C-alpha cells in the first residue's frame, strides 16, 4: 500500500534530497505499523519521532491505513 509522509525538524535529514513540498512516498505491506514506517525511513527512536495522521497522534503499534498521509515530528513542549 502507498503511504505519503511529510517529515519535520531534523527528521528530514534521514531522507536524501527530501522535497518539503511533496514529502516522500512509501510502499509498505498492508497492516504495516507506525514502527514499520519509521524503520523503513531509517529514523532512529533516539530522535523520538511523533507520528500524526488525520490530526491524531499515533502509537508505535498502530496500523497505518492505505493512502494515509503521515506527518512525523520530534516532540515539542510549550514555549
Amino acid at each position: 500500500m502507498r503511504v505519503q509522509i511529510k517529515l519535520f525538524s531534523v527528521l528530514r535529514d534521514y531522507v536524501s534530497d527530501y522535497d518539503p513540498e511533496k514529502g516522500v512516498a512509501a510502499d509498505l505491506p498492508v497492516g504495516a505499523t507506525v514502527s514499520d514506517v519509521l524503520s523503513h525511513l531509517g529514523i532512529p527512536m533516539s530522535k523520538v519521532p511523533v507520528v500524526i495522521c488525520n490530526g491524531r497522534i499515533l502509537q508505535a503499534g498502530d496500523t497505518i491505513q492505505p493512502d494515509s498521509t503521515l506527518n512525523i515530528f520530534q516532540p515539542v513542549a510549550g514555549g
Partner: protein
Amino acid sequence: MRFIRINMNNQEISVEPVPSQYLGLGGRGLISLYIHDHVAPTCDPLGPDNTLLFAPGLLGGTQLINTSRIAVGAKSPLTGTIKESNAGGIFGDAAGRLGITAIIIEGQAHQDQFWLLKVDVDGEARLVPANEYKGMRTYALVETLFESYGSHNAIMCIGPAGEQMLHAASIQSTDTKGRPCRAAGRGGLGAVMGSKGLKAIVLDSGGRATDAIADPEAFEKAAKDFARAVRSNPFSGDVLPKFGTAGLVAPVNSMGGFPSYNATKGVFEGWEKISGEHMAELMAKRGGKTGQQGCSKCVIQCSNEFVDARGKYVTSSLEYETIWSMGGMIGIDDLDTIARLDFLCDDLGIDTMSTGVGMAVAMDAGHKSFGDGQAAIDMVEEIAKGTELGRVLGNGPEAVGRYFHHSRVPVVKGQSISGYDPRAMQGNAVTYATSPMGADHTAGNVVAEYVTGKLDPLKTKGQVAASRHHQIIMVVVDSIGLCILASHVLSTPEGGQAFIKAINAKLGGTLELTSLTELGIRILKAERAFNRKAGFTKKDDRLPRFFYEEPLPPHNTVVQISGEDMDKTFEF
C-alpha cells in the same frame, strides 16, 4: 542580595536587605508574594498605589544555564489580576550579578516628568531625568542609551505604547546583541511602567556580586548535568536550535489546534509557508540566521535573525506565538509581513499576541479583510500615532471587540489565548480559564502531554490534573529564572535531579523536588487570594461562550471541561 526600592513620587531610592520572609525566593514567587502582601488588590493599576517589580530568578546570575529570565510583576491594567510577565535577553543575568533580588518601583512621578533608572557596576542606583527620550521607539532609544552609558549594559524600556499607557503595552528587554527584541509582553506592564514615569532601566552588565554559593563544587557538577540533559533532549537539542519556537507551527497545525481566522479554524491552509522549517530554509538562502544565542548563558540557542530578500535585518527573534497571532490568526501566510509586524511591535513596545488577536477580532468584525498584510501593518502604525483605532487596538482584544460590537473575542480575564486552541487541547482550556494570569501561553501549557501520547487532547480525562501540574511547575520555573524551553527536562530523572541538586548546592539545603511543588502551590494560592480580593470569582475561571458552542474544524469539538471540573484545578 538586596531590594532596590524607588519612590517615584519624590525620586527617593533606598537599598535594603531582603526581609527574612522573602529569603530563598526569586522571580515570580518573590514578586507574587510581595504584591499579595503589599499592594491593595483594588488599586488602580495605572495609579500611584500599584507597585511594579523586576526580579531575576533565585538562580539568576549563577553559572546555571538558561537561568537569565527576568520576572516583571504588578497588578495588570489589562486583566485587573495579579500579573507576572517574563522576558529573556541579558537583564535577568545582569540583575543577578549585581546582587539585586528585586527592583521595586512605587508611587508615580509628576505627570510630565520621565525618568531613567541607572544601576552601576558597584550596585549604586540613581534616577536620571529622561524627558529627552519621550516618544522614542525602543530601537532608537537603546541605541541612544548605549551611546550615553556604554554598550556593557542591559536595558529594559518602554516605547510609545507604554508612554500612552495602553493596556497591552510591553516592556522590551535587550538581547545579547543589544537589540530590544525580547519582551515582557503580556498584561500591559509597559503601561504600568509608563504610568510611573519610568522610561528605561539600565543595568551595568559587569556585576560580580551574586550571593555566595554554599557548595560551589556540587553546584558546578549539577549545572553540567543539567546542561547535558537539556542538550540531549530532542526538543531543546534538535528542534529549538535548528528551528526555534517556530518549530511548533507544524505539529500544532497537524494536531488541528492552530487557532486561525480569529479562532474559527484549527488548521491554517498556509501553515507550511510560516513553519519553522520553511523559515530556516528561507534564512539560509538569504543570509539570515537561526540557532542564535539571544539570552545569557543559554545552551539551546533558539533565536533567529530574520532578514528580507536583500539580506537586510528585519527582526529578532521571530517566535511561535507571534507567527501564530500575526499569521494564522489574521490569515497571513507570508513570513516577511509577519516579521515586519514583529519588529513594529517590539519597536513600539506592545505585545505581539494581544495586538494580533485584536486585529483578528477587528477583521472578523469586518473592519479589514483577513490576510491583508498592509492593513495589519497600517493598524499597528496607528498605535504609534495614537489614533482612536490605535488606542483601541493597543488596549487589547476586549477593547476591540467592544468598539466593533463583536462577540467572538478569545480572551480570559481580558488576556488573549495563545497559539493552542482550547477546543483541540482540552488541558490548555483548563489553563486558559483558571490561571491567575488570565489566558496564557506559558502558565501551564499541556501540549507536551499530547505529543508524547500521555493524554488525548480531545478528551476530558486527565486534563485538569495536567493543567494543575504544569501550572505548579511553571511557577517554580518562573521563580528560579529558568527558561521554559529548558524546563521540560525537569520531568526527566536526570534533569529533575540535576535541577534540585543545583538549588541545594546554591542554598545549602536538602530540598526534594516535592518541596518545589509546595512552593508552587503556595505562590498560586497567594495569586488567587489577590485576585479574589480584587473581585474575581469562579465565574471568571471560564472561557468565552463561543469556545463551548462553536465546534472547531477539523476535529469539530468544543471545550468539554465542565465548570465544576475547572473549579477543581486548585484543589491541591
